[in-house]
């Protein structure tokens, strides 16, 4: 059993009781909700005749279903309109803070909460969304929950859960130039596999992690769940504190000093004990792309798609499915694969630094013919900053469509979808069958810089050829 890690300390601090069944009752410090996984929870609350226990510990925004072209109300899609309307009514009725479209703070829930300073070290954070692991970048214990648990948090501010084990993922050295957090996390998932994290929290540590900016750290923790880990976190440091300082909900004045002191006390230390440790050399990583139908099926730009013989026996079945679905031949190279759609956005890579990097690649270039390319900022705040810096112009001049914030084609609940068996170069996090809205659409996951490079060349390309010139 792990001991004295940040995870242990935060877990123990939030433990309310041992439940009769043997699991722990855990207090949730911050509860985030959105329109897709909350309506049924509010419905259940009503059925049980219960109230929201601590309304000011829940914060709402709307992200999954919002259109990114025309956001005027009512939405064209009746069902989407019904969902946002239901969220508005529920928040009003239960006095929950709601950052709606036009508030200046709407956006993908995992982009918005850190921007507002809501996400802080040492908290437990839950949201009816698996990428809640993102918030662990700040040294919080953050995990996705289902709708019944959303109901439980609303009703009691607690959930029943078994304590996770802790695996430290130690990343030695530094990422080379032109290699990004996305490449690193894709490699971690590839090496450990998509189910290795089941039952674990991942602690990302080591010089390569310390060197990352807060936004890059969010990219890493965001995809913990793609490695099976419900929760991923990074110990807070000066970068964490300076990111949080002076945001709307950050502690102010004398409370700031108190907060820092407490946050520092939470860090894992040399004497912490882990259930497992995995080491990786970040300096060896190259631009990485998925070729299959799970985020673990990735290779670097100069590698060939593995043959069945090169794949572990337990992963061969899904590899066979992937060859068939993707239409790739084992042994074929991934470089130069033609692309139809380029998507930059999502809670993995839709932040301001992602847009800056992509814009840097796109400057003085044009999107290749017949490519549909669009960029969807992660939040209204990201969009505003990008416009102030002129990034929107760079994207538009290159031939990208500039859209309004939301989840968009990460999961295609609005009209942004792949058609037929189109291939997308996507900065999002899931390449599952049908994920981007077409039952036979194909997704190649990569960093936003690599998406930009692919958009210029019209095919999978090495971004280092564009930035190192």
């Amino acid at each position, binding site marked *: 059993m792990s001991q004295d890690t940040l995870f242990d300390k935060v877990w123990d601090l*939030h433990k*309310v009781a041992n*439940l*009769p*069944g*043997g699991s722990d*009752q855990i*207090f949730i*410090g*911050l509860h985030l909700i959105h329109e*897709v*996984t909350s309506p*049924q929870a509010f*419905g259940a609350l009503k059925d*049980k005749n219960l109230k929201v*226990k601590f309304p*000011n*510990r829940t914060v709402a925004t709307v992200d*999954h279903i919002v259109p990114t072209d025309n956001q005027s109300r009512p939405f064209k*899609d009746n*069902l*989407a309109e*019904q*969902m946002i309307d*239901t969220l508005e009514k529920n928040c009003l009725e239960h006095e929950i*803070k709601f950052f709606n479209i036009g508030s200046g703070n709407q956006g993908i829930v995992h982009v918005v909460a850190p921007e507002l300073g*809501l996400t802080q070290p040492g*908290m437990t954070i839950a949201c009816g*969304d*698996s990428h809640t692991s993102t918030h662990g970048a700040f040294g919080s214990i953050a995990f996705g*929950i*289902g*709708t*019944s*648990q959303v*109901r*439980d948090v609303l*009703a*009691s501010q607690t*959930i*029943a859960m*078994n304590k996770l084990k802790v695996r430290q993922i130690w990343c030695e050295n530094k990422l080379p130039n032109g290699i990004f957090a996305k490449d690193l996390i894709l490699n971690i998932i590839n090496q450990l596999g998509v*189910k290795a994290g*089941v*039952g674990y929290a991942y602690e990302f540590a080591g010089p390569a992690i310390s060197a990352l900016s807060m936004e890059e750290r969010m990219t890493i923790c965001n995809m913990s*769940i793609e490695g*099976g880990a419900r929760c991923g976190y990074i110990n807070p440091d000066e970068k964490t504190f300076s990111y949080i300082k002076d945001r709307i909900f950050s*502690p102010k004045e004398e*409370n700031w000093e*108190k*907060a820092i002191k407490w946050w520092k006390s939470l860090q894992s230390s040399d004497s912490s004990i882990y259930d497992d440790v995995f080491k990786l050399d970040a300096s060896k990583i190259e631009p990485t792309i998925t070729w299959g139908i*799970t985020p673990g099926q990735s290779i670097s730009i100069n590698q060939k798609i593995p043959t069945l013989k090169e794949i572990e026996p337990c992963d061969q*079945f899904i590899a066979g499915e992937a060859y068939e679905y993707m239409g790739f031949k084992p042994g074929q190279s991934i470089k130069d694969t033609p692309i139809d759609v380029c998507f930059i956005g999502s809670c993995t890579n839709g932040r301001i630094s992602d847009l800056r990097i992509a814009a840097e690649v796109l400057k003085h270039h044009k999107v290749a013919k017949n490519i549909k390319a669009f960029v969807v900022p992660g939040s209204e705040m990201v969009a505003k900053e990008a416009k102030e810096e002129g990034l929107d112009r760079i994207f538009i001049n290159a031939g990208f469509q500039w859209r309004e914030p939301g989840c968009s084609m990460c999961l295609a*609940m609005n009209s942004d979808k792949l058609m037929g068996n189109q291939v997308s170069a996507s900065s999002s996090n*899931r390449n*599952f*069958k*049908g994920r981007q*809205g077409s*039952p036979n659409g194909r997704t190649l996951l990569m960093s936003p810089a690599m998406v930009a490079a692919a958009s210029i060349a019209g095919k999978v390309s090495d971004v280092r050829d564009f930035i190192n010139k």
Partner: protein
Amino acid sequence: MKSIFNPPIGSISEINGKCISLIGDDIDTDRIIPARFLKCINFDALGKSVFDDDRKTLKGNHPFDLECNNGASILIVNSNFGCGSSREHAPQALMRWGIKAIIGESFADIFYSNCIAIGIPCFTLPSSTIKTMQKYTDNKDFFLKIDLYKSIALAKDLKFNLEIKESSKKMFLSGEWDATSTLLANKSLIEEKINELPYIKFNNDSP
């Protein structure tokens, strides 16, 4: 599909039913219920849309479409079943199609806790046993009688020792899988906790 859906309530100790097998590792919740069906404010209509994309692709040959699987209620799956999105719509859709229990090699964390929260016990068995079961299921109608108390599943001439987390088993037997009232019973402890957490104080009344 059953026309009237009755969600489980109270103690769950025994499940009898026909098995349906679904072969494949890493079957994610996007496949179980594609995102377009998430545009709903209740779960009622999800049953018919379970595996919609996969079923369309297989044009009637998907296990959930085969006539021989009509009325099945015990799903046999392989490893990492239910990975990906946290959408409870996935187990809700399975449950509304008729699934009452799942036996697999392994389950993704969030999917597993969603199943517990809505009253679907998930059991694990070694890969080789699952594969044997899936062969039986493919060849003929295969019925199992699951006894949660003893953690066994009985077929006509076979017996399987099922594995289930002790805490989940207790919850099903006692009926406490529907956790809200158990959690609320500790009302005063919850209030003590909120007063004791440092960040609640230094954040004043935010968030």
